[in-house]
């Protein structure tokens, strides 16, 4: 197994072209345990962290640009970012342990394509886009379109994510992410729920709800989004959010949780995340009032 640490995307692409059995990595927090657990070693490992764009964070002209290999600890420690996207920040802060978070990244978390990736639902409800490097130049895709199944992505061979783009949320918006693990850290979500919503006065103007670890990929919950839109988050709405979230699940029975448990808890977490997002949004200036 060889190791290379290119400093430009072109160099990285060339390395990937040079060896069909190559693999990119950022923090390697999934890669190393997988190899230790017996997954075949790639012949070439390409470390992306030396490429400046992959670890840069900027906020210009209403758009956040976050390098795909940026350590999640740099995002949770970024007060401006965390205030704009509190749910995405808390999702980023749940990956592994403090030590892991100095290595873990959105790019790695997403491309590992675990159904339980914590950052994925929060990226998706915030409409994150991924800028992807490939042999034929750069392209942009919705973060929601990257993962196609457990361990599977839509990235072509030789492609990798350079950075993520996030537009400033509209006024009166906020987000929240909750997950259920049997412990308090160092664990993998049994259920994850992300909600992003925008308030117009007392009412929800629009909402997005996404669930992790309850299906092969992150699932959006249109029924919950429709129930939230126009509502004041009254009890009937919250009950409808729960029911829609439970219905949207397509989980498996495994050592981490049963189908019934995941359905039940998905409903609970979606409802609670909506309430938290709304509470946060209320403390933001609402549309037309600022």
């Amino acid at each position, binding site marked *: 197994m060889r190791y290379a640490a290119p400093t430009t995307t072109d160099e990285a692409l060339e390395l990937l072209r040079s060896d069909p059995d190559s693999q990119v990595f950022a923090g390697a927090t999934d890669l190393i345990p997988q190899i230790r*657990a017996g997954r075949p070693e790639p012949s070439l490992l390409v470390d992306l962290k030396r490429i400046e764009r992959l670890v840069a964070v900027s906020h210009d002209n209403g758009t956040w640009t976050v390098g795909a290999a940026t350590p999640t600890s740099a995002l949770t420690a970024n007060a401006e970012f965390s205030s704009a996207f509190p749910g995405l920040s808390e999702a980023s802060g749940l990956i592994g342990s403090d030590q892991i978070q100095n290595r873990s990244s959105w790019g790695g978390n997403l491309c590992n394509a675990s159904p339980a990736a914590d950052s994925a639902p929060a990226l998706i409800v915030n409409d994150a886009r991924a800028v992807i490097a490939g042999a034929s130049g750069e392209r942009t895709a919705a973060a929601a379109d990257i993962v196609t199944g457990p361990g599977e992505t839509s990235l072509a061979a030789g492609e990798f994510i350079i950075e993520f783009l996030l537009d400033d949320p509209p006024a009166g918006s906020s987000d929240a992410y909750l997950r*259920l693990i*049997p*412990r*308090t*850290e*160092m*664990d*993998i979500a*049994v259920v994850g729920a992300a909600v992003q919503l925008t308030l117009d006065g007392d009412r929800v103007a629009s909402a997005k709800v996404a669930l992790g670890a309850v299906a092969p990929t992150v699932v959006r919950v249109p029924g919950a989004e429709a129930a939230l839109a126009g509502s004041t988050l009254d009890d009937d709405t919250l009950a409808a959010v729960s029911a829609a979230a439970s219905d949207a699940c397509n989980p498996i029975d495994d*050592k*981490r*949780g*049963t189908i*019934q*448990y995941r359905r*039940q*808890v998905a409903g*609970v*977490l979606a409802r609670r995340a909506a309430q938290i997002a709304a509470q946060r949004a209320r403390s933001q200036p609402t549309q037309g009032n600022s």
Partner: protein
Amino acid sequence: MTVTENPRTYKYVGTRPVRHDGLDKVTGKARFAADLDMTGQLRAALVRSPHAHARIVSIDASKAEAMPGVKAVVTGADFADLDPTHPEFDMAVNLMARGEALYNGHVVAAVAAVTAAQAAAAAAAVEVDYEPLPAVLTIDEAIAKGAPIANTTNRTLFSGDAEPSNLASVNEFGRGDIEAGFEAADIIIEREFRTAAVHQGYIEPHACVADCGQDGKAVIWASSQGHFAVRSKTAAALGWSTDRIKVIPAEIGGGFGGKTTIYLEPVAVLLSQKAARPVKLVMSREEVLRATGPAPATKITAKIGATNDGEITTLQSTMYFDNGSTKGFSALTGAMSVASYKLPNLELHAIGTVTNTARSAAYRAPSAPQAAFAVETLIDELAQRLGVDPIDLRLQNAVVEGDATAMGMPHPKIGFVETLEAIKNSDHYNSPVPEGAGRGVATGFWFNIGEQSSATVNLNEDGTATVVTGSPDIGGSRASMALMAAEELGLAVDRITPIVADTESVGFTDITEGSRATFATGMAVVNACRELIEELKQRAATIKSADVERVEWVDGAAVIEGEDRLTIPEITAMAKNTGGPLTATASLNAAGAGPSFAVHVADVAVDEETGETTILRYTAAQDAGTAIHPSYVEGQIQGGSVQGIGWALNEEYIYDSNGVMENAGFLDYRMPVASDLPMIDAIIVEVPNPSHPYGVRGVGETGIVPPIPTLANAIAAATGVRMTSLPMSPPRLLAAITGGADG
């Protein structure tokens, strides 16, 4: 905090010096077995059965032997052929299968090669032809009529039965008239409890290095709870005499009972002998979980009766403990641990089973936590039904000195009542239960044992001292040995160097088990010091030309006729002229290990929509007799509590239908992490053990006994749901809450 009835005060005993091995351990300098590397050393890898039960038709290692770097391969055919009645038969067969693989992960061959990667590749190339056999995976399957036999070499212990059986042991004992007891009862409660197999979870995987010499002798560096036992077990597995084996103890990264047996050393010795090179063998975490010491899964029915006045009239229980692939005593010790209450009528059936799962090993107060889950849950329900305080009900029925244990033997001087009162009087128990939370209490008992220990105390020429013992330092025992020696000699504790010597440098010493090291090895240290003091007095008499009868030992010095004073450095400086080096050795088979009782209280909050349990506050009181080093007593209390909490809430072996462990890693075998726990407040109760010179009771084990029922009782108080099945994980607890059924 300490609640003491100790009438004596000491200068060193009861203080909290930095442990002698502490700096090296916190800086990473301490050497554990896997840290050792020798010139020319090979690395070994094990071939493990992919079947839960299979006949080994043939093993072809020719491809493996031809691979790069491979220097030796061994299989069951290379080991001593022990008779099934040999006491080490099961241990020996467990570390290398003979004829049949008895569980998924059972070792069938081993390979040594120049690098670890070469060894792993060669192990994968060993061709084993298996004929799969029907497997028995659970207690229910083992005891079912017509069940396949899990291990044809098993004969039921205590039964006299000569036929192969899935029963590992059968015991019945009790007293009084069980029917009369139930007739006298106003309240009778009966429940069935189930617990999953759990692992000791020591942080250090098993590891050793073995180096076989041209003289046919082997040196082993190993992490264990007792290197003399490593020697004797290795000798038995190889059919060697013990003088051919020297075991040098490495530091140990946790054992909790799981390192009272061995898995690797005879394999490494044989590989080393074949290859004529040192061989290092280190397990991965997955191997540790798949194939070393889980504590038994259980199925326990228990029925209790009490009068409306709160007098417990009777207890009847049938306890099934699964030993995994071989016979064992786990059911017996579980039943024997029912010893905390005056039970005029008692009937216990203890039944061990054998299944095609990993051979179980001792785990901290072996079998007592599972038994306490059943008994302490029923006592809590009794208190609830009677409307009395759960500690008052226990105080009313608590055993005191002279009351019978389960086996009928009278308790010696014990501190159960004092420990109950310590919790009853605690700040925690007297604080209001937080809004929405539930409070639970439960108790635990463990016998503790004595066994054989040796110690040598050497005085150096400048008056410093070395204390040499054969007990590995698992929980701060070096510091405890030094403290007792300091107290005896009147020598500052930092002038004493406590060491753990190899099997050829100190007298025989049994395994550190049964919370015995501070008690028994400590007593050997005290005895050696007392012998040394007699010698010091003699030397002082010689120096001063006085009658030894007129020499007293006072505060670290010989005092002659009440005036002239000679300190230890003054005496050792003259040693050459007064008879030579000053040293003393003591060996003993310690009797009178004092039982230790513990009482725990916990406040928990349960999220009734997700089934998550949060422990808000936890206090544990335990009788230490006398705390030699209170910090390490508190550490034992806290560590036992945490392991019990993990067992209660999330830990479990999950097997698939083929007997493959599905969660063989710390991600999915969920031990608690630090953020899961509040501070465990430890209250040390001191009711001195009259059989130890300082009153020591072993403290290592009892702390794991109460947590499971403490949390189950707290969860019942918070939710109204009685959990009778472990673990009380969020999915199970939510199912019980929403389904209204018992867990």
